């Protein structure tokens, strides 16, 4: 027996940790991981509401979100690798080409 409030609180805390990581960290890899954390918090909410409304749609959409997260991480990591080849860094502070 799982309380809906507990799920919402935990997924909210996980989303906050993800946002804080994206804003605070400098390493592009860690930033990507924090984006994944936020997507997982959203998935947790999808499943919790699916469980509390008796509808199967939430679980179906959580599966779709999982697929999109995989696509996003593949492209993001390819970008990081390309960036490392060109600029020899993965610290987002060192990537300021558009600054002028």
């Amino acid at each position, binding site marked *: 027996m799982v309380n809906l409030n507990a799920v*919402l609180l935990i997924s909210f805390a996980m989303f*906050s940790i993800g946002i804080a990581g994206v804003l605070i960290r400098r390493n592009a890899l860690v930033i990507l*991981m924090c984006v994944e*954390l936020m997507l997982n918090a959203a998935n947790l909410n999808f*499943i919790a509401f699916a469980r509390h409304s008796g509808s199967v749609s939430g679980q*179906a959409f959580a599966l779709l979100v999982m697929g999109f997260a*995989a696509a996003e991480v593949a492209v993001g990591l390819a970008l990081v690798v390309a960036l490392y080849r060109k600029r020899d860094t993965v610290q987002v502070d060192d990537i300021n080409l558009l600054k002028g």
Partner: protein
Amino acid sequence: MEHFIETIGRNMFAIFGVMALGGAAVVVASRSAVHSVLAFLFAMLCIAGCFLSLEAEFLGMAQILVYAGGIVVLFLFVVMLVEVSKAKEKEVFQLQSRYAIGAVLLGVAAFAAVFRKVIFGAASPQALVLRTDLAQGLDVAKQNAQAVSRGLFADYLLPFEILSVVLLVALVGAVVLAKTERV
């Protein structure tokens, strides 16, 4: 002793959830990227446990396969490729900590505003149901994978196909982005 085990069984979701939060905190706070990836793996496994305790068995297993089997390995490869040489991280954290704290507080306010009714109201779990034409010959509450697949392919076939196209584009795009310049 039996009482203790029963208590743990009832609070399985909270245990997994708190462990996942701990893993997420280590992802953000740890200095080395390899430690971050390992903590990320731990958090993903704990979230799979959360899914299982929310009776989404198929998604729990898919979470383990996709994240522990695919994404974490991908992250580890890139960390090995990138981080071995002079991982010169002058300071771990950026100066935007102020903005981060502000964003989290804003999130708390928005969360409280949206979920005020849900948090303080009573909500009880309900067993999964499918439309009667979809649920023929299926024990929806027990056969989670079959129920999810019937719901997915009946009502959400178009998003599923779009997802397959997106995955194909991501595959080609990742190869093109990551390949070396010389042919």
